[in-house]
């Protein structure tokens, strides 16, 4: 037996006990999972995407199962920044748990405004900038698939916030390396990827999309190999840390991302199947480090032995 491996990481200035984060939109605003798992044992929590005001999102059906995956079109329903700060943040402050808030806007300006609202709020450790949600037109993917627009919105938010900034990249671009570099150059402290992949399921009897919104975002194990590839390509393109996600449901999955180049990982869809996933992932990473005689998880980041071009 070797000494207890060091699982701690520092991402965008946030010191985390371990590299395992709950992904935005899959763990609500905090209280939903707080009685089921030990929040003090997580790396961080990422709050579901917030707008400056309450937002209704899409009508149901909002979710359908797919082979090894989940298609959702929640449409960024959220209570708005103020309600989050008033109703949920106090509860989150009680834990020794970094809080990353995912934000979005319908316009460039709104991104900036939402970001600025957190400048004098205690208990928020970083902002994740959702420029890649496939489920609404404004405030979503449109900002994340044109490099110029992405640079502009990240740059603008950078000026308005004192918090570490983590743009969340869209998987539906030809060159993820390009967008990773754009984020880095525009002042990002880290990047996170991937968001869900635009997709559709059709009810053949009714000849309509199953989801009211038509399209949705595909997540879960089905997309993991795509996500690992993108994280590998993105992390090689930049010096800032990468938070990797997409289909992680066990330590092995998380380690794929870490070896590919992610400094931290997030667990999303798997929370629905097993609320204990993130903590199991932590334990399984620790076990792996021990078995491989590694003193710290940081030694493992980006150690993929493979050279060929991206």
């Amino acid at each position, binding site marked *: 037996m070797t000494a207890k491996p060091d699982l701690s990481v520092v991402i965008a200035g946030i010191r985390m006990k371990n590299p395992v984060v709950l992904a935005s939109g899959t763990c609500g605003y905090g209280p939903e*999972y707080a009685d*089921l798992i030990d929040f003090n044992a997580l790396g961080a929590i990422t709050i579901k995407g917030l707008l400056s005001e309450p937002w*209704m999102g899409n009508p*149901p059906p909002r979710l359908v199962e797919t082979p090894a995956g989940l298609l*959702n079109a929640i449409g960024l329903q959220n209570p708005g920044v103020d309600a989050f700060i008033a109703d949920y943040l106090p509860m989150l402050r009680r834990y020794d748990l970094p809080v990353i808030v995912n934000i979005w806007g319908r316009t460039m300006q709104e991104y900036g405004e939402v970001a600025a609202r957190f400048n004098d709020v205690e208990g928020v450790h970083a902002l994740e900038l959702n420029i890649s949600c496939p489920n609404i037109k404004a405030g979503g993917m449109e900002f994340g698939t044109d490099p110029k627009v992405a640079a502009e919105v990240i740059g603008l938010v950078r000026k308005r916030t004192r918090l570490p900034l983590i743009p969340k990249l869209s998987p539906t671009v030809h060159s993820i390396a390009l967008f990773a570099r754009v984020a880095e150059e525009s002042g990002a402290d880290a990047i996170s990827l991937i968001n869900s992949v635009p997709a559709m399921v059709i009810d053949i009897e009714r000849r309509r999309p199953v989801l009211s919104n038509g399209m949705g975002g595909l997540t879960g194990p089905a997309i993991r190999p795509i996500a690992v590839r993108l994280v590998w390509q993105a992390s090689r393109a930049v010096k800032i840390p990468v938070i990797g996600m997409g289909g992680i*449901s066990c330590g092995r999955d998380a380690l794929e991302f870490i070896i590919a180049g992610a400094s931290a990982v997030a667990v999303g869809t798997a929370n629905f*199947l097993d609320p204990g996933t993130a903590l199991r992932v932590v334990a399984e990473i620790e076990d792996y480090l021990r078995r491989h005689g590694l003193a710290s998880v940081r030694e493992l980041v980006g150690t993929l032995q493979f050279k060929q071009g991206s």
Partner: protein
Amino acid sequence: MRLIEEATIVEHAEFTAGYRRLVFQAPRIAALAAPGQFVHMRIPELSPEALRRPFSIYQSHAPYLHVIYKPVGRGTQAMMHAPPGETYNLIGPLGRGFPVAPDGPPPVFVAGGYGVAPLSFLAERLPRRGVAFIGGRTAQDILCVEDFASRGWDVRVTTEDGSRGERGRVTESFDRWVAARKDAGPAELFACGPEGLMRALGERTATLGWQAWVSLDRPMGCGIGACLACVQHVRDDGGKVAWARCCTEGPVFDAKDLVWDGVAP
């Protein structure tokens, strides 16, 4: 309070033709369960990537928890082969169930298909008796009649094909009964079944001025309020339309709060 529990299957057999009953040893969830609540069930026979499936709690006598299901799709068909002794991971009890008040107006139950399960549980806990309308497509879809009859309920069975009880829809039987008792004062409705039926009953009870509790099914992701998949339009105290989560604020709602968009009654 909600728990995650590894529940052991202690019994699993046909309940009535076309339906099956699963009995779990789930002492912690069973101790907390209330009528109208559900469990969110991981089905190990499905691929490890599959979503959980929600099931109403049919009976709960700690340590035992019963569920009735109809094998219809991938999940419920995979469940069919679960042998006693196997463990299923359950999250529960979930959601807001039916109110169980000692007194109140005479209770009227309306059930469609497996919607009868939570009402049977409610009949056991509710210290009042009344009329239970049980409807289904055919005789096969009529379940649990004895659960009510043995407790002294007036049971009215309807099937669409007339193979058991009255022929027709359960709402027709309900309407006739309502018409007959015209001046008897308001009753209190408790209902569970297909969404169209819930809406039809909601509209009728609004007209009648009854208190009405209806339970809604929705595709669910997390089952615990985090994913916002299972929403339903409701009118809040200020009359504003907002979303409620069927898994958390529901599945049982006060019918007068519900806003029905796009559901055919």
